[in-house]
Structures are given as structure tokens and as C-alpha cells.
């Protein structure tokens, strides 16, 4: 459901779904170092084009954050620390079933993350 118009439009998101995804993310981050093989997930975009995507480094970052290594987490991708913080906040505290989020929020967050990636890669 979308309310408002233009810049102020909001989308109603299902927090139950988001909490499920948050659990999967945190559980995955706990388990990942225990599994054999490399801990990283190669970014398909970067493999194909050399351009990092906004999520590059997130696996490392979230894993490090969950294992209480904030410096490594920040270095890999600062958004990972934020993601873990939001995930914990979503799971620990009670929340209503849905939330109204501004429609521009997610593309804006991704754009900021990509700017960080390109800056780190020396492109910007």
C-alpha cells in the first residue's frame, strides 16, 4: 500500500518478513566462519564488470560485526554494522506488524553505499 504522493510517498512494508530476513542474516553470519571454504561471497557484478556493487563486503562486514570485530566490519563495509544494528533492534524489541517507509529510502541508501564503494575503489 502506498500513501502520500511524490517525494513523501511511503510504502507499507511487512516487518514480520523483515524480522525473518534479519534472523536469517544474523544466523548465517554466526555460522559462516564455521563452514569449510572461503568466507566471502564473490560479487557477480564485480566479477563480470569490475565495478563493485553496493553490497560488496557486506558478508565480511556482517560476519565481523556479529563476531564483535567492529573495525574489520567498518573497513569491509560500514553499512554492514548498520545492518546488524538494525537487525538486532528489529528482533529484540517489539514492533507493529507493518511500517510505513518512504519510498526513496532504499534507493537512496543503495546509492550512498555505491558512492562509498566507488570512492574506495578509486573510481570517484
Amino acid at each position, binding site marked *: 500500500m502506498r500513501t502520500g504522493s511524490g517525494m513523501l510517498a511511503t510504502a507499507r512494508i*511487512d516487518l514480520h518478513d523483515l524480522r525473518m530476513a534479519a534472523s*536469517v542474516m544474523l544466523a548465517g553470519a554466526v555460522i559462516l566462519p564455521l563452514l569449510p571454504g572461503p568466507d566471502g561471497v564473490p560479487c557477480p*557484478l564485480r566479477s563480470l564488470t569490475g565495478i563493485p556493487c553496493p*553490497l560488496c563486503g557486506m558478508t565480511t562486514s556482517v560476519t565481523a560485526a556479529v563476531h564483535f570485530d567492529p573495525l574489520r566490519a567498518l573497513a569491509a563495509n560500514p553499512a554492514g554494522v548498520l545492518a546488524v544494528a538494525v537487525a538486532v533492534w528489529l528482533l529484540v524489541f517489539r514492533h507493529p506488524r507493518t511500517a510505513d517507509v518512504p519510498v526513496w529510502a532504499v534507493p537512496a541508501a543503495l546509492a550512498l553505499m555505491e558512492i562509498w564503494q566507488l570512492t574506495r575503489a578509486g573510481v570517484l
Partner: protein
Amino acid sequence: MSDFGSGVDGGGGNVQSGPRASFGIRFVALLIDVVLLAVVGFVVRLILGNALGSAVNLLVGLAYYGYLEGSPSGQTVGKRAMSIRVIDFTSGGPIGPGRALIRYLGRILSSIPCLLGYFWMLWDKDKQTWHDKIATTVVVPTSAYPVAAWPG
């Protein structure tokens, strides 16, 4: 043949406005399909070797999703197990193999930025992934959109 449930069409105009399958349920359905295809893929590679095996596995995946998601039920094995199905966003009916193929190719796009297209459904107002948007589909629970036969 029979009506596979055009579902709820409440005042939203010309799109299906009934309930959607949740992230968790879709994720489990995906896991089931991935494991199934991985097992098949493993056997294929054992028999045909790595190079030919990989090529055949690509076709197997295409055929699996194209046929099953394009069938009247719109259900892969995983989706059937989790009681969800793929339907056309507007009509609520099956999408046919052609669009199912397009949806499958759309998954590749969804995967390229580290599966962002999949996670997109978490904040999308219609709970569509990118491949849903490309194929104009939504994934819904069969409780609201019943299936008469599988694959139909």
C-alpha cells in the same frame, strides 16, 4: 479448463490485491528447489563430466522453472511444498512457459548485485522481486489462490 482461482480483486483496480507469500516461505521454497537441482546437477556432472554437465544443468534449470512455473499451477517442487504459487499480477492466472522462461532469466538479473533483486521484495509494496517485476508476476499463498492439480 477449470478456474485456478483468480483470487481477490479488491478495489485495487486491475492488479491482484490478495495476500502475498512471505519472504521466509519463499526462501524455504527456494532452498528446496536449489537442493533438488543441486542433487540432479551433481548426478548429471558425474555422468557427463564437468563441461557438458554444466551446460546440461543450465538447460535442466531452464526446463524446470520454465515448465513448472509456467504450468497452470505455477508451482515448482519447492513452491508446492510451501503451498505458494506464481501467478500473473493482473489476471491472477498462470503465466505460461514463455513468461516463465523470462522470469527465470530475470532471476539472473536479481542475482547479479549479490541477490539484491531477491531481497527487494522485503520493501516492495507488492512484495515483488526483480524477476517478478520483469515477468509481471506475484507469488501468492495457495490458501488464497487454490491450485486444482499439479502441475496442471
